[in-house]
């Protein structure tokens, strides 16, 4: 469904992303992990259409991506709610240009608020919401237009461990309920295994994909099971290999 081929993004002489490929199937949950600077957020921004200055090709359902689109919902690292709009309006703004009747819009917003468990807070301003609630609202905003793919850029990174675990379960529930494809960028390996069907490991200098790891564990996943632990080890190794390859080079250079 979503295909990225030979994608390269340069910032001057710095190669943020080199010859990168990515495949996300219909309704698939794919996670990209990697150390900071590996180009994972850059790749997500390219897919979102926020950044169009690249070579290579990114297509969604066979169509080349041009600019942003409500087809591709995005959730940023911070909730990015508009502080002057209450919760309802912050979500409804995503439907401003949707070809829907006002009643249909209202229903969609109400349904989305219910889905992320914020019913009763419709008239609350963002300053009154907790970090977890605000991020739920951001997820609702990205989903209300029923995109075919949802892009999540470390959406849980700023939350405390308990809220994060709870929202991970919420994300799974939403993913199942909406049947939408998701690409999650994270540096939390456990989060990646808990949520996704496929994990893409990236490395920096230049940013590129170094491993594609399938996650075949049954749902719901038990974070304390042996298989979970084994997979965690495998991904850590993949990340570590990335670091290990670099280290000797550095030593020779000295």
């Amino acid at each position, binding site marked *: 469904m979503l295909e990225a081929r030979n994608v390269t993004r340069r910032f001057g002489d710095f190669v943020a992303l080199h010859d990168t490929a990515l495949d996300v199937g219909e309704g698939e949950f794919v996670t990209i992990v990697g150390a900071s600077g590996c180009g994972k957020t850059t790749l997500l921004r390219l897919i979102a259409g926020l950044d169009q200055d690249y070579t290579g090709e990114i297509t969604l359902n066979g169509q080349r991506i041009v*600019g942003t689109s*409500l087809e591709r919902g995005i959730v940023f690292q*911070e909730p990015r709610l*508009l*502080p*002057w709009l209450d919760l309802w309006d912050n979500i409804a703004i995503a439907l401003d240009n949707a070809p829907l009747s006002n009643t249909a819009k209202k229903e969609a917003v109400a349904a989305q608020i219910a889905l992320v468990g914020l019913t009763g807070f419709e008239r609350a301003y963002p300053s009154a919401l907790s970090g977890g609630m605000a991020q739920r609202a951001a997820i609702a905003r990205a989903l209300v237009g029923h995109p075919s793919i949802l892009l999540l850029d470390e959406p849980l990174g700023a939350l405390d461990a308990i809220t994060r675990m709870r929202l991970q379960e919420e994300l799974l529930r939403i993913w199942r309920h909406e049947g939408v494809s998701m690409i999650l960028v994270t540096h939390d390996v456990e989060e990646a295994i808990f949520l996704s069907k496929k994990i893409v490991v990236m490395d920096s200098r230049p940013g590129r994909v170094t491993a594609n790891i399938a996650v075949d564990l049954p749902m719901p996943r038990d974070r304390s099971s042996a298989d979970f632990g084994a997979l965690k080890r495998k991904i850590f190794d993949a990340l570590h290999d990335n670091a290990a390859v670099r280290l000797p080079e550095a030593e020779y250079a000295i």
Partner: protein
Amino acid sequence: MEKKQQLGYAVPSGVLYVPTVSAPKVVTAALSRIKTFFTGQRYVGALLPLLILGLWQASASFVWIEPVFLPAPVKVVEAFWYMLIKQDLLRDIWASVFIIAQAFAYGTLLGVGLGFAAGLSRKMELFFSGTINTIRHIPTVAWIPLVVIWLGLGAPAKIVVLAKSIFIPVFLNTLQAIRGVDHNFIELARALKLTKRQLIRRVILPAILPVVMVTLRYSVGLSWALVVVAEGISGLEGLGFLIFRAQNLLMTDQLLVCMVLIGVIGYALDRLLYLAQQRLLRWQRGFGGSYA
């Protein structure tokens, strides 16, 4: 206890007596307002004016200052009444308020309008900013003689000059506030596919509103002071005219009437804008002033 029993019924102690016939709502509302005025913190704001008034009265009673320099408060109230009844004071007040209201409307519209034009287009900014930054340095008072030559002594000249004095800070701050809008919000607008119109209405306008409102309050205060100066320099009516006439005639009581009125009206104008600001910015949760 004994008294209650003498009356033939017992009122349980600790229970407030509630009258069965309640006062009209307006009265109870007013009473509760007065009550909160004294029990809350509001009365603090009345302390300093009362102190000043007391000192003023004392200086009159004990003749610390000659009445010709500082007449007693009562004399000033009498002068106020006289001016109101005999000298058509309301017309002068209206003349001044009318000028500031119009100057405010034109200055704000032009300032916000051109501020937006420059804020949304780099080319427009380059086009305007040099000229406006030069004009900005010519004091408002320096404009009065020329504009009076063009437009005469009446209200239009003052409106033009004051509109300019409101326009400049509103323009500059609008432009600067637009430049300061969080880039993340602009990116969000792109992700949500907002049109430029929607971007302005739903993102930029609310984002710059705190700055614009403060600028409006500031510049209205400044212009209200300038109304007085302008009327003093050239004019045949208005509070500024009256205040300089009172000085020439050594009518200190009338002079003080004008001063108090200018202060009170200035306060009222600011209050009005403050209330608008509170209403428009009710989403903002900032520092409320208590820190403990």
